[in-house]
């Protein structure tokens, strides 16, 4: 319980830091938001009225407070460019990015866990060496390059899917997931390779531990020692690693959305950055940060559940 409280306070502090930094970052942008909205032709008086309306003349901490309050209640500001509430702009795009992130996670686990266990069971045999080399190469390929190759090979050559032919989850959920598999795989492959590297060395370290020798001395077979004793201990550092990877997956999904023409949150972010549509950028960034921080906390709690040595 104490541990949970500690983690939640940590989360709150982290959220505070991120929100202040994000708020300040967009505060120091040169240019007057009111003037940006009204355009260069607007009179000074008009701009002043809007400034008052938007609360821009209030002190910094008051504006921060209002911004946080609005954000929590779901009011994420209004887009400069489209004059639309940000919430509506990104609301129906969130599920797309979330689906892709979750799918990537699942693929990473599906690929990396069996491969790692196989490598450790046959350590230094040909299968281990093969995966070691494959890993090193896979890790070095940028996900968007994998994505481009996928679109050409599976899209244009094999015609398994139509590149750019995104299917909305509102129309056909199965088709939607089907379309997301290749993009998710493009994100997942390099990360699965990293996970294998991590999990493999963690498992090998566990297999050198004294308790493994004890397990052998009781008459356990090598497979049983690996599965019943080592995996549970060896997976602990991997969980932390996966938590840290959440940030990475989301960052990469921004690029991959572009490659496959998926209208997720990333595309909105990129187009808003090019249009200097700051309220949208700010909202998306803070939203992603919140998701990542919460994910990290969940990982920490999960870790504590599994590692009985952590108390407090």
């Amino acid at each position: 319980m104490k541990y949970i409280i500690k983690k939640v306070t940590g989360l709150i502090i982290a959220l505070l830091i991120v929100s202040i930094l994000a708020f300040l970052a967009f505060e120091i942008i040169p240019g007057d938001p009111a003037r940006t909205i009204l355009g260069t032709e607007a009179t000074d008086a008009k701009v002043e009225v809007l400034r008052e309306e938007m609360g821009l003349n209030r002190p910094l901490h008051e504006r921060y407070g209002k911004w946080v309050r609005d954000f929590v209640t779901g009011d994420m500001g209004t887009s400069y460019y489209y004059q639309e509430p940000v919430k509506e702009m990104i609301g129906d795009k969130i599920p797309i990015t979330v689906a892709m992130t979750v799918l990537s996670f699942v693929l990473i686990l599906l690929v990396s866990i069996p491969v790692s266990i196989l490598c450790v069971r046959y350590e230094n045999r040909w299968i281990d060496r093969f995966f070691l080399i494959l890993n090193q190469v896979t890790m070095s390929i940028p996900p968007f390059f994998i994505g481009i190759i996928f679109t050409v090979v599976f899209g244009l050559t094999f015609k398994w899917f139509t590149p750019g032919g995104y299917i909305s989850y509102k129309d056909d959920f199965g088709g939607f997931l089907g379309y997301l598999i290749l993009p998710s795989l493009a994100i997942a492959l390099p990360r699965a390779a990293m996970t294998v590297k991590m999990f493999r060395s963690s498992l090998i370290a566990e297999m050198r531990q004294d308790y493994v020798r004890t397990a052998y001395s009781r008459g356990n077979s090598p497979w049983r020692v690996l599965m019943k004793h080592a995996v549970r201990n060896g997976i602990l550092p991997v969980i932390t690693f996966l938590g840290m990877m959440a940030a990475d997956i989301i960052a990469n999904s921004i690029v991959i959305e572009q490659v496959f023409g998926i209208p997720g949150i990333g595309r909105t972010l990129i187009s808003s950055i090019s249009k200097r549509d700051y309220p949208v950028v700010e909202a998306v960034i803070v939203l992603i940060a919140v998701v990542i921080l919460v994910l990290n906390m969940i990982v920490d709690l999960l870790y504590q559940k599994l590692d009985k040595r952590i108390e407090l």
Partner: protein
Amino acid sequence: MLSVENLKIHFDDRESRQEVVRDITFFMEKGEILGLVGESGSGKSMTALTIAGLLKANARLDSGAVYFWYSDEPERKKVNLLQLSAEEMRQLQGNEISMIFQEPMTALNPTMRIGRQVEEALCLHTKLSKEQRRERVLKTLEDVELENPEELVEKYPHELSGGMRQRVMIAAAIVCRPRLLIADEPTTALDVNTQASILELLKKLNQKYGMSILFISHNLRVVGELCHRVLVMKDGEVVEEGRVEEIFSRPRHEYTKTLIAAIPSGTMTNSFHEQRKKVLELRHVNAYYKEGKIRRQILDDVSFTLYEGEMIGLVGESGSGKSTLCKCVLGLLKDYEGEVIHYTERPQMVFQDPYASLNPKKTIGWILEEPLRFCKEGSRKSRRAKAEAMLEKVHLSKEIYDRYPRELSGGQRQRVSIALALMTGTSFILADEALSALDVTVQAQIIALLKELQEQEQICYLFVSHDLDVVNMICSRVLVLKDGHVNWLE
């Protein structure tokens, strides 16, 4: 019951071939406790691991046979363990032949409940039902004299004390009632009192179940207390063999004599030096350690005085506050009440692990000259001369001046550590477990060096150790630290 014949094992390490066991032959009777004594590298653990079928992949068996009789019947079925398939061997492991290890914390799986670990051998070797297994586990935990077995089975290893963990290890090993228990240094990591109780327990189990025990240790005293018969091993060979009484009363081999000499006689030279100059005085020291938000009191009203040229021992189990006391004396701890008075220079420290105490990236010369360099003292030439003189003083060759720590042996490194401490001109050395990582013979050499420096240079020592035997042997007075209190050993 067990017979080892002409066993030869070597390690295949890269290009080098290292013989660890050279032609060993011995036997064990049913119900016998056989001690296997020797320092690290003598091949005693390797012999034990061979019998238990736990040899590492890079160990190669050259020749020999290990016969094991797994029945009391007159026709006595016997098998050669070395010729069994992996599957056949696994049926014996944990069932007929069990093993316990030195470090009970790491030898238990940290994320598995105690109950499951004790039960595991039953799952593998018997067809008992869940309830029968549970009953057997509880019974076995009682056998090893653990209280509240019902609660215990739900716990994890880190929730137990060192002694309890070793009892759990024993319980897990004997749950199938094996005919042979191999105990590899099972008491080395424990403090003196717990050591005694574990030895007592092994004796009882031996009598109760007629279980044979192969007991491996570097400590002849411990072996003497427990075993019926002893094998003394050195460099992969058995140098002496016999009943315990014979070995102790009439040792034939030189090495056995060294080992026996290392056992304290029990009579201490309690010479006080009140008239001598004081070096260090602690007056009513209470020290605290902050662990997260909690400030725990570690030392409780500690007072003692150290005189010039004296060697005081400080013993205590881990967690008794030894390292906090050291930090206090060294001035590395700020959070304390009371007085720590240094009448001379600050002490220098010699550490347990001579591998960690010398900067691996610097040469021995650089390391030794660092204290001089800092004082901006003398030219490069005079610094070198001083460093070389100091090397000579600790009986090291000048040639190691340009070597790196990794090129030296453990004993040589410990000599360099002592030299480094003396380079600062101090006459007070705090030795923290300085002998623990060394073999018995090297220990003796380092002790001789410390004694020599004590007499010739009037160096005084605060000698910290968990090993009462060693401390008793070399120190004039011994402080025992328990739960933050100190008392002089009578």
